[in-house]
């Protein structure tokens, strides 16, 4: 194995046109940076904030895909339910920050397990596409059912987080807020916890075994059903935290909230290499920053196109994402 820098040099020597395009983009960014360095750094900071929220959602996608090879399209809507739970807990019932977060985690984890039991488990032996269609069905159901009048009554709320006072301060002209620090701290804590669970506990060992080979794991006496259920619970719980943090950062809430962040987090997971936990974090940070730069310098709808173009280009040259293992397709 050669070291990383020389591999990068070899890669760009082989694909010189990519190097030229990359250089042009860097030059363009440098021009923008010279215009106003402050703005640039502000976008980077905002991108980091967004990226850390995406990371929480992306982890759920990546874990579920790693274990059952299913793109869980309902994940974004679980995230939405998490944000509504936190909203109702804090505003209507005046709960504190941590109890509200615990409630969001609990509700989302329960919802995740219910979805898995109802919609995915009966189809585990069916063609994979059937489970994908039920995932889309569950996603539609959550979106439109919660939009009904008696479920999450007002559809479009400007949410001011009561349990926290937003304080912002400027460091050399760049605005930070305590929300951002909170997001980074909570996400880091979750990542550490997740890393501990996956690499240092028996459950984590079982998860990795099931992800590697389900049949053999079953032969080794691992309770595969329990492992899959707990994966869904953990992933959905993380999405619940993500939902709460997302509405703290972007105080606007509606039942279609989960669609775009869900898609972006999914892209981030694929970008980083689906099935890989550090990949999900790094992919999310990159996607968050690219998105914020595109939104700031180009236009708001343009950012989706830019993000997807970046994804497609990365996939073309690294078909399993940045940190993804090489495909282990059975011949």
């Amino acid at each position, binding site marked *: 194995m050669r070291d990383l820098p020389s591999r990068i040099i070899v890669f760009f020597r082989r694909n010189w046109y990519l190097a030229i395009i990359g250089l042009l983009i860097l030059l363009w960014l440098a021009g923008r940076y010279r215009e106003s360095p402050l703005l640039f750094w502000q976008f980077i900071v905002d991108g980091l904030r967004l990226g850390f929220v995406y990371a929480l959602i992306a982890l759920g996608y990546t874990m579920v895909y790693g274990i059952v*090879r299913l*793109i869980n399209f309902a994940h974004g809507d679980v995230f939405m339910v998490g944000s509504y739970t936190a909203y109702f807990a804090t505003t209507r019932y005046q709960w504190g920050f941590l109890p509200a977060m615990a409630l969001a985690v609990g509700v989302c984890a329960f919802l995740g397990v219910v979805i898995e039991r*109802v*919609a995915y488990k*009966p*189809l585990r032996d*069916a*063609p*994979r*596409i*059937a*489970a*994908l*269609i*039920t995932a*889309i*069905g*569950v*996603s*539609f*159901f959550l*979106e*439109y*059912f919660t*939009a*009904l*009048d008696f479920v999450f009554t007002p559809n479009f709320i400007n949410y001011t987080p009561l349990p926290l006072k937003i304080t912002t301060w400027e460091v050399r002209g760049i605005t930070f807020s305590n929300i951002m620090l909170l997001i980074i701290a909570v996400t880091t804590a979750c990542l550490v916890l997740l890393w501990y669970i996956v690499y240092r506990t028996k459950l984590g060992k079982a998860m990795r075994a099931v992800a590697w080979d389900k049949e053999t794991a079953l032969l080794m006496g691992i309770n595969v059903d329990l492992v899959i259920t707990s994966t869904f619970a953990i992933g959905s719980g993380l999405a619940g935290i993500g939902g709460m943090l997302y509405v703290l950062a972007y105080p606007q809430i509606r039942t279609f909230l989960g*669609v775009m962040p869900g*898609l972006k987090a999914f*892209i981030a997971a*694929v970008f980083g290499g689906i099935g890989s936990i550090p990949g999900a974090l790094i992919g999310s940070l990159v996607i968050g920053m690219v998105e914020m730069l595109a939104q700031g310098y180009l*236009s708001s*709808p*343009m950012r*989706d*196109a830019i993000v*997807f*173009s970046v*994804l*497609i280009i990365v*996939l*073309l040259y690294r*078909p*399993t994402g940045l940190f993804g293992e090489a*495909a282990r*397709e059975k*011949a």
Partner: protein
Amino acid sequence: MNRSRFRFLGQGWLFWLAVVLIFLLAQWVLIPRLNEFRRTVWVMFPCIMAIICLGLNFIFGFNGQFSLGQWGFYAIGAYASAILTYRLGERFSYPVQGIVVQVPPLLQKLIPMAEISLFHFDAGKSGLLLVAVLFGAVLAALISLAFGYVVLLRLGSDYFGIATLGFAVIVQVLLINSDLVIPETKGARGMVGIPQMTSFFWAFLFLVFALVVIRNVLYSSVGRAVVSVREDELAAKAMGINTLKYKTIAFVIGSFFAGVAGALYAHLYAFLSPLYFGFQKSFDPMIIIVLGGLGNLTGTLLATFLWAITLEGMRIWLPQGFEAWRFVVYPIVLLLVMLLRPQGLLGKFEFGFLRAPKWPLRQVAAEAAPQVAEATAGNPEPQEERSA
């Protein structure tokens, strides 16, 4: 087998008789009984949707390439053809005087019309529509050729699906910003002033065209190569099949029909909005083909009409004040169908002429070497392993 009998596009007289009968029944008996809205959403739009779904079924159901980008090619076909007809506008109009036939009073109960005008159409407009459909479809096919070649070369299974989903999103964003280059599209506000030219005749004609083309390609040597890629790509490669070539062919054919459908859609509603081409709707064709059964043409046709009629019919059937429940009932139905029949509504059942034809070659081979034929006939069907 009698080879001298009437054949057109590979189909015998029975098929064409059935097509004409279905068309006449729908045109004279069904459509006059429906109002404008139901005529559009229950009859014409499902025909268009069926064309997209047949294309997608060819890509995913028969070739096994998980594509979510069909909606992007649909959008390309719609916008390309709409811009063409918008520019050429009303300049082409050569009405052809038809024959007016009095409907006998006995038949008037069945056909609620006093007279039928035969061969009464606008030759200029029809020609323009044909050119527009061809233009939209060919553009969609060319773009899919470039995109498909680059992406299929490197990506497979789920990653191909993600890349094509990305393609659909990129197309939508470009359409939102398209008024910078082409002012007629009016960007995010939506394009208005497209001449309304799609009638039931055109939608049905292109549906039959798509069905016949896909069926004939499927049961040709190209079709067998395409299906072999789905069954086992490695084995197909080992048999000397250029898998990339056949994957690209299937992708281009599927996208071509998405373009056809897009052009028909644009001239049906006479209004195009980039919002309609959002990525969430791009799951609709995928849902339909899985509902009908992957790799099943009959199932696709049936599922499209069932899907459209239930989804739009719920506007009428749901009690007053429960209109918002439409999309609550729909996913529940979807879930139930998928849980009860994961292989699709029809599974492997194909109707009549859509079944794989019995090749005369096999009879010859059976006569020449009966023991070989018996040995192969005794084998069970090979297990299908489909990557989603």
